[in-house]
Each structure stands twice: as structure tokens, then as C-alpha cells.
């Protein structure tokens, strides 16, 4: 994936996902916002920051009461043409994860690149 692919243009959204699955509804609600924007024809970049990188851990399951989690939604991203997935390098290291072991293909971004992301997208939503 080319480096400049992550930079937004007019009308693009950056959705920052900072929570993991199951523990709270933040991840689900952030993904829902991303899917709706994409369905409306907007280009969406997803940035997984901090604990948000755990959303991409492979092999997630339903919760013990049948909570379905978010991995089925993540698997639908491609259908919605959301293909710019970024993960914070530092967060991967914190959790002992590797970009090539995630459930979806995602590009690592270093801390130094983060500020460009916010400024080049028209709208930034944090979840």
C-alpha cells in the first residue's frame, strides 16, 4: 500500500478506534459510523490506536452470553470499500502483536505520521 494512500482528501473521514472488542461498545459504535460514512460514498480511513489494535486479533469469538463481538463487522469492511486500515506501531509493540499476524491487512504507522492523518482528513471522529 502506497504511503500517500492514508492521507485523506476533501470529504474523507478518519475514524480513530481506541478500544478493544467486548469490553465496551466504543469499537462497535465507531465501526458503525465508519460503515455508514462508506455507504454514503465517503472514503474512510480507520486508525487503530492504543487498545484499539486488539480489535484486529485473529480468532475472536462470541461472548459467553452470545454477544457477537465486532470481528464479523470487521470482515465486512472490504465490501464497503474501506481498505485503508492503519495500526499504531507503538500499540502493536505494547500488546506484543505483529502487523502480519492480524485478522486483516493493515499498514503500520509510526507516531511521527499520526499528526498528518488528522490534518489531511475532512472529519476526524474518535471512539
Amino acid at each position, binding site marked *: 500500500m502506497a504511503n500517500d494512500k492514508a492521507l485523506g482528501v476533501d470529504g474523507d473521514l478518519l475514524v480513530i478506534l481506541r478500544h478493544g472488542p467486548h469490553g*465496551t461498545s466504543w469499537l462497535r459504535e465507531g465501526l458503525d459510523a465508519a460503515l455508514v460514512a462508506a455507504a454514503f460514498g465517503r472514503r474512510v480511513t480507520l486508525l487503530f490506536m492504543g487498545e484499539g489494535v486488539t480489535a484486529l486479533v485473529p480468532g475472536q469469538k462470541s461472548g459467553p452470553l*452470545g454477544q457477537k463481538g465486532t470481528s464479523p463487522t470487521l470482515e465486512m469492511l472490504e465490501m464497503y470499500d474501506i481498505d485503508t486500515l492503519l495500526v499504531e506501531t507503538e500499540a502493536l509493540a505494547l500488546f506484543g502483536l505483529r502487523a502480519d499476524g492480524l485478522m486483516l491487512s493493515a499498514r503500520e504507522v509510526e507516531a511521527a505520521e499520526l499528526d498528518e492523518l488528522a490534518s489531511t482528513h475532512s472529519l476526524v471522529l474518535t471512539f
Partner: protein
Amino acid sequence: MMRYAILLMGAPYSSQAAHSALRFARAVAERGHRLEGVFFYHDGVHNAARLAAPPQDEPHLVDGWTALAADHGVPLQICIAAALRRGLLDEREAARHGKQGYSVAPPFELTGLGQLVDLGLRCDRLVTFGP
């Protein structure tokens, strides 16, 4: 046989606390302990929202609590002060505040914080689930 109480302070869906508490409550009752009550405080009071309409492929927590009460006779006590400010009123409180309609129904009952202290000191174990 021990006496248990549960304090739940997390709203359903927003946090996992309600899922964890409901599952633990069932385990307590099924092992033959006496679950003397579940007390709902802070955002936990939203577990009593009778109008909750979660997606059909998600667990229905309000129904889950109601089933727990029916199956094991567990009192479901909602802190009235925390509930009123969050829009959770039973028929009596709605009338008292001049509101049409209500958002809490039995087996959930509005009660004072004193019930929490009583539960906590009377039971052998109080387990808190926060958001």
C-alpha cells in the same frame, strides 16, 4: 450455602459489566448459594429500562435479569436517587413527579441506598461489577 449480593454499576451494552454480573449471578444461584439481591447503582440503573430494544442477535439483558428474578427469587433493587436523574421512574414515581408514562416495571423495584448497605453487611459476599 452462602449468602451473596451483587452491586452493578455499569450500563448494559455500553460496558460489559452487566453481562459479567448476570452471568456471575446465574452461577451463584445455580451452585445453590442464596443470592439475596442485585443492587443497581450509578449507570447500572439503566439495566432496568423496560423499553430497551436491543438487536435480536444480541443478549437481552433486561429480560435476562427478569428471568433471574423469576427463576431464583432474586430481588432486583434500583437506587432511586441514581434512577430519577437518569430518567428511570416506576409508575409511582412518575405520578409523584407529574410525568406521563414510566420506564421501570417489576420485578425491578426502586429503593434507597440503605438497601445496598444492608445487603453488603448482611451477606457473606458482595461482588461489585463496575463499568
